[in-house]
């Protein structure tokens, strides 16, 4: 039964990704910005311009270009970047680990902050603590991640220079990883100096991403916790003599976490494609930074490859969330 459900979801993902591929390709041809116009020097003749178009395969009819691209994707080839002169697939695979490390850490921080704030707010309900937490949550949610980036950069990069401001790793460190998952590789190879340096570089961008996210998660969790606290089993636990904190953490939190975990999954998918501005500000070499360079250069193959990657990641994450639902709730498998 579950195998059939899984098969069905996987099959449904294929037309979704195909539609994304079509939309991306068409959009790239509609939006302004001809990559050739970005590189022609003064004095180039129409022949020179046509020659450049031919070199980059942009002289072919749009349908032919699309079919070539689609055929390439089917063979695992996303094309070649115009500006970076490397395979798009290779470029994306090189950058994806950096973004994943940033996103995972941000998500971890956000969940930790959200759970802590929510538990504290429920524990100290109707007190000054709750009001202060309310204010902090409101501020964290109201300020977008790029503004948090600038604030953190100013406070912890300049005024109190505790953390490095830009990059992923100190250029003076000698570290030649085999994979691009620097953090995990540094842990497994016991390069603690690299681990600390990576964490130091990740600190400001990950907190900038985590604050607004933590606020959203906290609001959902607090709502669920409040609801759980009015249930009979909570009253029973209180009668049994458990302290308020114990009641929250041992009984209410477990049930209240389910909607938060769902939301975290959705946010995780959004976060992978939403690190662009933060990566740009901190010069963090991830997918977001690559996307900005690609857009500035109107590097069509790279933009197409990146959007397709974001779409696939989104579909996969949603699929995993749905599958986890199905595992938790067998009634959903038959739908």
């Amino acid at each position, binding site marked *: 039964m579950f195998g059939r459900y899984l098969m069905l979801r996987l099959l449904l993902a294929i037309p979704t990704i195909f539609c994304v591929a079509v939309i991306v390709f068409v959009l790239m041809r509609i939006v302004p910005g001809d990559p050739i116009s970005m*590189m022609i020097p003064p004095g180039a003749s129409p022949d020179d*311009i046509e020659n450049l178009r031919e070199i980059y395969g942009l002289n072919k009819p749009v349908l032919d270009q699309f079919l070539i691209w689609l055929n390439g994707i089917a063979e695992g080839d996303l094309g070649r970047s115009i500006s970076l002169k490397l395979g798009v697939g290779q470029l994306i695979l090189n950058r994806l680990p950096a973004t994943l490390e940033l996103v995972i850490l941000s998500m971890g921080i956000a969940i930790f902050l959200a759970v802590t704030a929510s538990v504290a707010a429920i524990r100290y309900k109707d007190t000054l603590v709750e009001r202060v937490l309310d204010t902090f949550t409101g501020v964290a949610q109201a300020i977008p991640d790029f503004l948090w980036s600038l604030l953190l950069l*100013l406070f912890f990069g300049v005024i109190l220079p*505790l*953390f490095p401001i830009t*990059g992923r790793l100190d250029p*003076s460190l000698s570290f030649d990883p085999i994979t691009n998952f620097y953090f995990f590789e540094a842990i497994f190879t016991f390069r603690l100096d690299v681990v*600390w340096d990576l*964490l130091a570089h990740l600190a400001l961008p990950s907190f900038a991403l985590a604050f607004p996210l933590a606020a959203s998660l906290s609001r959902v969790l607090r709502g669920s916790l409040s609801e759980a606290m009015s249930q009979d089993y909570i009253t029973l636990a209180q009668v049994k003599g458990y302290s308020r904190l114990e009641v929250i953490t041992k009984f209410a939190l477990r049930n209240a976490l389910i909607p938060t975990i769902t939301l975290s999954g959705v946010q995780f998918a959004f976060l992978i494609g939403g690190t662009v501005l933060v990566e740009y500000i901190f010069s963090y070499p991830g997918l977001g930074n690559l996307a900005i360079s690609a857009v500035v250069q109107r590097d069509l193959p790279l933009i197409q490859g990146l959007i397709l990657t974001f779409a696939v990641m989104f579909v996969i994450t949603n699929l995993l969330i749905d599958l986890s639902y199905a595992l938790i709730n067998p009634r959903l498998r038959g739908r």
Partner: protein
Amino acid sequence: MHTFDRRRFLKISGIAAAAPLAGSVLFSGCSKGSDVLSIAYNVPLPSWDPTTGPSSVNPTIQTYYKAVFDSFIDQNPDLSFKAGLLTEWGWNEDRTKIKMTVRENAFWHDGSPVTPEDVVWSLERAANPESGNPIQFVWSKINNFSISGQEITADVKEFEPTLFKWMAFLTGYVMPKKAYLDRGAEAWEEQPIGSGPYMVEKFERNAYVRLKAFPQYWGDKPEFETVVIKMVPDASARVAEIESGGSDLTLQIPYEEFNRLSSKGFSGQSYPVSDIGMIFISNREPMLDKNVRLAMHHAIDKKAIVNDLLLGFGTPIDTLQAPEYDAFESTTTVGYDLELAKKYLAKSGFSVSNPVKFTIQTTRGYKPKDYEMIEAIVGMWKQVGIEASIEIYEIAKHFELRMQHKLAPAAFYNWGNSIGDPSTSTGFAMFSYSPHSAFKSPEVDKLIGPLWGEPNEEKRIEGYKNVDRYIADEGLVIPLLQYSQPVVYRSGLSFTAHTAGFILPQNIKSA
């Protein structure tokens, strides 16, 4: 007796983990040695091939290339030319052949000598339409190379007066034939080989490049053994980099920040570079009316824009030639005169109560205060009877529209010209057949046309001065200002400004 329970274990582990992290983080900024120079640069490097693709014609990226590669011919900070890998160069009497002498004591970063074959291969590759060299139309004007010792001769297919100037300009770099062919284009991107003062030690795309001084470099040995160029496109982050001590030098920061940092003990230089701000005029209504065009120009108070808006970071100009360029003529001016502007408009029936209306396009944030500058100009125009509505466009859109000749009647943009030749400013910006010209004028074509192949340099330069005079009289373009580049660095450094805007690490020394 204490029990070692799970909670205690976690507590101790947490403290143990946090302590070295805090230590490492707190002191991370202090690990830099004194022989390391760190630069927070504003543009990331897309590719290590300085001769093909979009980055090869991006002037801001030349800083990286100039550190690692040698040009055929080099430039002094004042844009005058000097020997690069070529020590001598020139035409024969009737301009049908060129002769070049290759430097003898030059080496590639892999230790092999730079040979005349490398130079010929680089020129032939650049001229090959399949290589994707955007300046191929210049390099293809010579062929039939022959080598004798260190001397190279070639036939001139079509006389190009600026050929040798291009050898110091975009895509004018010498590449190692054997190393490039052996490695292939993709491997080249990871570990390029040049003959310049620095070797690429490590390249982390979109993050940094670590350069090491090349011991066999033919020129003066750079003072800093290691140079780290961090790619920091965000201006706030660049300011933070220099302020926190993370970098020793940065550039292109907001003018207000330049003044603030200068007053905080940082050293700084702001100097005119070979980049100008201008308003393209397209030959469409209402710009077909000369009175309107001249009124637009006379109504702009460029001094006020430079002094008040740009805080003095710029030089007003009236032609497409900056003072450092070969064809600059100080007597060709278009004065700020509101009454004259009103008179011109009145001749065409326009006034404050009956203004001429059109759209002006501008970028926002691409150049310092670009949008604000256009807002100020639109305000100035309003006083005389010109009502312009502002349309913001992206830089890619500008290129596309300009190539298709579909720009709005007026469009703000900038124009770089690091060799200072008038053909690469007035020539390409105003000659109808150039894909970058906006105002297509047969009269201008008649003036510029003969200058493309003019062998007499004095006559050629004089010819361009006349073209600029004609353009100013007809109001075919509105040059606004020459940009100044702000560079800030820590005290204890000595920085040599380069008019082309390059930040050359080999020219940075301890004070």
